């Protein structure tokens, strides 16, 4: 007893978990950050593919467990992985990585970490709008920065990073710890390639000025320059999931293993429960009513490379590409297995890759800027180049079908020449090329879901003419007569709610200031780059 009394101070100084580390090294942290960079791309694309009406599910419920797959009943949905991924899995780890790498004067780690943070910031603000940045990590209730200021910061950060990539004291510093492929499986520590990726990010950031904010020739040229800078020695930043005998999250998040981080820190792809939408299958890909040996299944030969047709139930046994209107519900005699197998794609295998940015996107950014600069021919050429590249990526090898699509019977439908080539044709191809990429939904919002119902036009044309809102949207939010004229406004979802479990509780005043606190109308508020003012019609 006396011993315990005299030595109690020592005994009480014992609150360090023996099974956990309180320190890390840049080498041990970079693989985690790079992995999460891949994951956040998936996180955004997984939501986006449903929100952009590419995929749907068998359900017609107004209140899905995952609101983005059905009735858009978002206000009760929490733990959106994108928010956590940006601020914590990437943000907090990047902060730690930057600190310890700076302390070690190994600036190569700092550059990669900052480039990834730039990408993460851009993805996150494009999904949520205003969000903490300048005061993030300083308190439990940081101030939300405006999306405008975040975009200003991102552009500034991109320029600063590009300059630092050109600074040998950063890229070739004597204290730089060599980065191996097991730390950076995207570029093996090749800072020149990370620089090009940062240039591409700058191009994507600048693109947000189109078509609503500023489509002057000067801006278009600025975008084109950024793309051209990125395209020099361009290599897609691919995170390859090519580990042999991989288990769990070592498999591609789009693969049939449907990996989730720690069972709930990410959302499983559930492509086995997903059904291709009528919009994507019919209106975009031009699926045929039945298979033709000479023409295949669809006008666009990529359809067969993105998914595989399957047989129906006994009453409808033919093997074909079945589809559903979004959230219309599946017939009782059908099952998901009667719809196309979405795992039959080079993008959706366990050993597939996640590309943080694709060359198609770069080309199509340039095409879009070229279009708004007034050069439709140039825009068409770039669109075609991107399309062919995309076909190559997906493994389309039948030359005849490619030619038929780009230069044959379907040319006038997809690639008309001269003034007949419109922003509709361009964005249609980008919609396809961005299959399972975050930009797919962003582009659709950027063009304000331009369709035959809302009749919002760009350059005089409707961009997504046959696009329709999902059936059976959650009534309290989406089937309301705001104008009191008896007509229901076909408003579209523009953003995702802030997490009710965390933001509503710990930053309620900021949410109230924004008008986002438990307010369904917040979901309808366009991003700063998606405000339609009719000036470009």
């Amino acid at each position, binding site marked *: 007893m006396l011993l315990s009394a005299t030595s109690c101070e020592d005994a009480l100084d014992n609150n360090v978990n023996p099974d956990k580390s309180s320190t890390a090294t840049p080498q041990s942290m970079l693989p985690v950050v790079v992995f999460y960079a891949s994951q956040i791309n998936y996180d955004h694309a997984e939501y986006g593919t449903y929100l952009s009406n590419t995929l749907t599910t068998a359900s017609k419920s107004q209140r899905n467990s995952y609101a983005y797959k059905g009735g858009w009943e978002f*206000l009760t949905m929490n733990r959106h992985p994108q928010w956590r991924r940006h601020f914590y899995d990437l943000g907090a780890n990047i902060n730690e990585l930057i600190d310890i790498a700076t302390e070690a004067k190994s600036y190569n780690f700092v550059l990669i970490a900052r480039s990834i943070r730039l990408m993460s910031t851009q993805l996150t603000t494009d999904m949520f709008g205003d969000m903490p940045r300048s005061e993030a990590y300083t308190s439990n209730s940081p101030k939300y920065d405006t999306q405008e200021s975040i975009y200003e910061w991102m552009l500034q950060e991109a320029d600063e990073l590009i300059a630092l990539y050109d600074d040998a004291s950063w890229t070739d510093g004597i204290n730089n710890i060599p980065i191996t492929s097991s730390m950076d499986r995207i570029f093996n520590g090749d800072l020149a390639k990370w620089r090009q990726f940062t240039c591409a990010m700058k191009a994507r950031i600048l693109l947000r000025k189109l078509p609503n904010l500023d489509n002057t020739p000067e801006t278009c040229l600025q975008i084109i320059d950024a793309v051209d800078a990125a395209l020099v020695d361009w290599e897609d930043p691919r995170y390859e999931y090519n580990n042999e005998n991989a288990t769990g999250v070592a498999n591609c998040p789009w693969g049939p293993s449907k990996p989730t981080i720690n069972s709930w820190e990410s959302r499983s792809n559930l492509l086995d429960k997903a059904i291709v939408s009528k919009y994507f299958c019919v209106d975009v890909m031009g699926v045929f009513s039945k298979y033709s040996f000479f023409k295949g299944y669809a006008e666009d030969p990529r359809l067969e490379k993105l998914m595989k047709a399957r047989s129906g139930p006994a009453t409808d046994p033919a093997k074909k590409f079945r589809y559903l209107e979004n959230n219309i519900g599946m017939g009782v005699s059908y099952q998901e297995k009667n719809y196309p197998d979405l795992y039959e794609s080079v993008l959706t295998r366990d050993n597939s890759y996640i590309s943080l940015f694709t060359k198609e996107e770069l080309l199509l950014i340039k095409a879009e800027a070229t279009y708004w600069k007034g050069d439709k021919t140039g825009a068409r050429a770039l669109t075609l180049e991107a399309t062919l590249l995309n076909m190559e990526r997906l493994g389309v090898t039948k030359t005849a079908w490619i030619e038929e699509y780009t230069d044959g019977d379907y040319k006038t439908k997809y690639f008309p020449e001269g003034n007949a080539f419109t922003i509709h044709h361009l964005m249609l191809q980008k919609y396809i090329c961005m299959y399972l990429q975050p930009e797919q939904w962003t582009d659709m919002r950027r063009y304000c879901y331009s369709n035959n119902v809302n009749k919002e036009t760009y350059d005089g044309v409707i961009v997504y003419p046959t696009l329709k809102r999902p059936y059976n949207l959650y009534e309290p939010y989406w089937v309301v007569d705001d104008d009191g004229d008896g007509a229901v406004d076909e408003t579209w979802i523009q953003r995702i709610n802030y997490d009710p479990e965390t933001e509503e509780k710990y930053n309620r005043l900021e949410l109230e200031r924004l008008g986002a606190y438990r307010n369904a109308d917040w979901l309808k508020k366009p991003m700063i780059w998606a405000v339609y003012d009719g000036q470009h019609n």
Partner: protein
Amino acid sequence: MRKQLLLLLFCFSVAMTFAQQKVTGVVTSTEDGLPVIGASVQVKGTGQGTITDFDGKYSVQVSPKDILVFSYMGLETQSIKVGNRVTLNVVLKSSSVMVDEVVITAMGMKAEKKKLNFAVQSLDADEITAGESSNFVNSLQGKVAGLQVSTSGGSPNSSSPMVIRAISSINPGQSNEPLFIVDGMAISGGGTAAGDINPNDIENLTVLKGAAASALYGQEAANGVIMITTKSGKSGKMVVNASANVQFENAVRTPEIQNMYAPGIYGFSAPNVSGGWGPLLQPDEQTYDNVDNFLGTGLFTKYDINMAGGTEKFTSYASAMYSKYDGIVPNDYKNRMGFLLKSSYTPSKWLKINISLNSVETEARGFGSSMGSIYNWPVNDDMSNYKNNDGSMRWLYDMSLLDDSQKLNTPVNPNWGRYEDWSETKTTRTIVAGSIEWKPIKNLVLTGKISYEKNHSSYDSAITPRFTETDFVDPSKVDLTRFGQYTYSPSTSELIRSQLTASYEYKINRDFKINALVGLDSKEYNGVSGRMGGADFILPGEFYSLNNVNAISTDASLGYSMYLNHYEENKFGYFGEIRLDYRGIVHVSGTYRTDMASTFSNTSYSYPSVTAGVIFSELFHLSSPVFSYGKLRGNFAQVGKSGPRYKFDRTFKNMSAFPDGGFGLDSTVGASNELEPEMTSSWEIGADLRFFDSRTRLDLAYYSTTVDNQIVTVRVSPASGMILQTRNEGSIKNYGIEAQLQQDIFRGKPFNWTMGINFSLNRGKVVDLPDDIVEIQGTQYGDVFPTSYLNGSTTALSGKDYMRSPDGDILCKEDGTPMINPAKSVLIGNREPDFLIGMSQKLSWKNLSLSFLFDGRVGGDVINLTKRSLISMGQDKSLEKYRNREVIVDGVVEQADGSYLPNTTPMVLNATNLSTYFTAVSSNFIEDGSYLRLSYVTIGYNFDKLIKSNPYIKGLKCSVTGKNLFTLTKYTGSDPQVGTGSASGAGGFGIDYYQVPSTRSFNFTINATF
């Protein structure tokens, strides 16, 4: 005439003078033989008298016919006729009437209840075992005012979390269970762990309710203390007791399953679905009562033997116990074997040595809250037929028609899991304790205690393969656990406690007495737990062992991964108490304690308590045939409460599952090195009133408790750089009333009848939360959370509700469908009861005894998530009546002018509407948890007289007990006293979520003394 009057007065005065005499004497007491200072010496019926001086002496003028009445507080009053005596020495005996109930209070000290200035309630051995519960902790409900025990169902392995008065912490990571002290030393665990103590070994149980009562125990006792004193040997001839106990039990109030619909979707037949959303059953279609067929009759048997005896210097007590408890669920069991050995050696009157060894071994297999799979089994399928003739599993679905994914989602027959899979948890709990009491000088007692508790448990489990690789088109994508899983999870914890106290009693004079106590104690807690295991048996069906698995992993995301965790925690405290006693009438005390804990970076924290009490009935001589005794008491106390360990540093975790591994921040740990202890500040006033020669005994208490610096682990915004953060956040307040009434309705022979009533109510409120936070949520159950609301209840429920008019009516649309509030986390219920009540009756007539207990509650919401799930699955009995019927929602429709008219448009209760408008709204499943239960009835007979001449048996008693015989309640689930087994934070009580149904049981006990 004037002269005559003067003469008469003179004569009278002379007569008076002649009749009076001076009587002197000394008053002493039998208690210590010392003179009694201040004793009252009154001439009966005159108001004349005096009091004794410092030497106990008195002097009074009396006549020979007078009667002198000698009285003193705590001593028996004596009345003596003077006669011719001029010297009258009186020895006053201790007053048997005034010797009060002796209870064990803090630090194991015995004290008369009247000397305590806080609420305590004590139960003796008979009261503890009354009701013959297999778990004595469960049986405390209704016996102690302010004590709540919830059960997680009718399984032998159900937990028994206990809360005294109310929760003190709203953090799910902080326990609200009291500290259990056995023979003066704290043991680990709450009510569930304490349930392993053999009730037949318990001599006395005392509940210390308020902070003042438990202040000396410090940081672990902020939720109250339950003091258990086990039986001891007594000098004299050895006494042997043996008892046998058998109990049968069956489920009561099981959810009713519909018997009208087949499985399907939207009323159509559909392959490979369970539940009951299909078409009507065919007229001749056979149906099965799968729930009743699954649940059987539980059997509990228990055998006890104990021996006690000793000499003047050495006494011992030894007991052995074995119990076997098979629940109503197949292979849900708990078998226990326990030993207790206690010895006490008193080599001299200055020294006493105690030593004890207690060991309990348990073998158990639980069932958890898994009744959902049974309730949702289609009624047209015989669930008991789970195995094909070749021994393989009979699947509910035709597996030949299913793809890989569908096969994996096919429900496994619960009977297969119970009969073909195997698991067992073995637990050994051993407590060795020793103490030495040394009295080096008169009135000084030095006590040293040390105890060592070791808990070891191992979970061993084999889940048989559900499939073989050939069952799948692509078996490489199948979770390997589907091909079998083996798990071995050992854990060991050690608790070493030591305590040193010194107490001194100093009598200033006969009226004033001071008791002082100083002490220090320390606690060292360490443990290790791990898991070994693997998946995919190499030789399925041959043997199930770790040596037969293909896959092992350290990937934490995999269900069969391996891990090992160590932990260590230390606490230290020193304390002091001083008590002042004035003539046994007024008691004042104060304590002060300083605590240190390894879980806080601050070095120490201290807190005081003060108490005062006065027996006003004696101070003001108010005792009368009607009013026997009255005491007022009050106290104020603070107690600190420690926090969770390992929260100082941010830590990095090995991300071994990632393609290139690496170390990243561990999201489950947020740095919190500014943590401060939760601080409970409490005041209490109370009264102990007794009437009619103490036949009526009433104890009242009002308390108010504020707990500041709530330590909560909250899911903060990731923008803070953390996911979970442990921090001090806000304050809660509890206030309430407790009343205990004991009434001897008949006292004497041969008939005795005593009634006891306990009443308590508490109001808990969150009074402060930082950072504009308005609610703290606990563990999630779908969209339902136990929630503590700012300026609202600490034990509320949040979930989904309808849109409502200003008058609270449900808003409906023109089509008659209700409008659902889009907001999440709406206040939908409050689990805090309006009040709790218990009423016990104990009757005896000659050798026959009867006792019973009514236990009840008014108010307190329960959310019936079991029912919600049954309706969602189309299985609830009510669907037979309401499915596809038109109903008019009891709501209002908003008019263009803003007024509201009653809804008159019906809606059809089909699967879609029920899903969209009914089961999606959790407020529909809030029910009133009020109940009145006949908790038990015991009839016993004592055969002592019949065996009087038997030289071998000294006593024989038999009893029959019926438990949970009926429950009056509007609650539609199995039991309104339901919970999820957690007393942490806002707790899991009042949440009905697929627990094993409660049981009704009949128990037969025979007890013999040799």
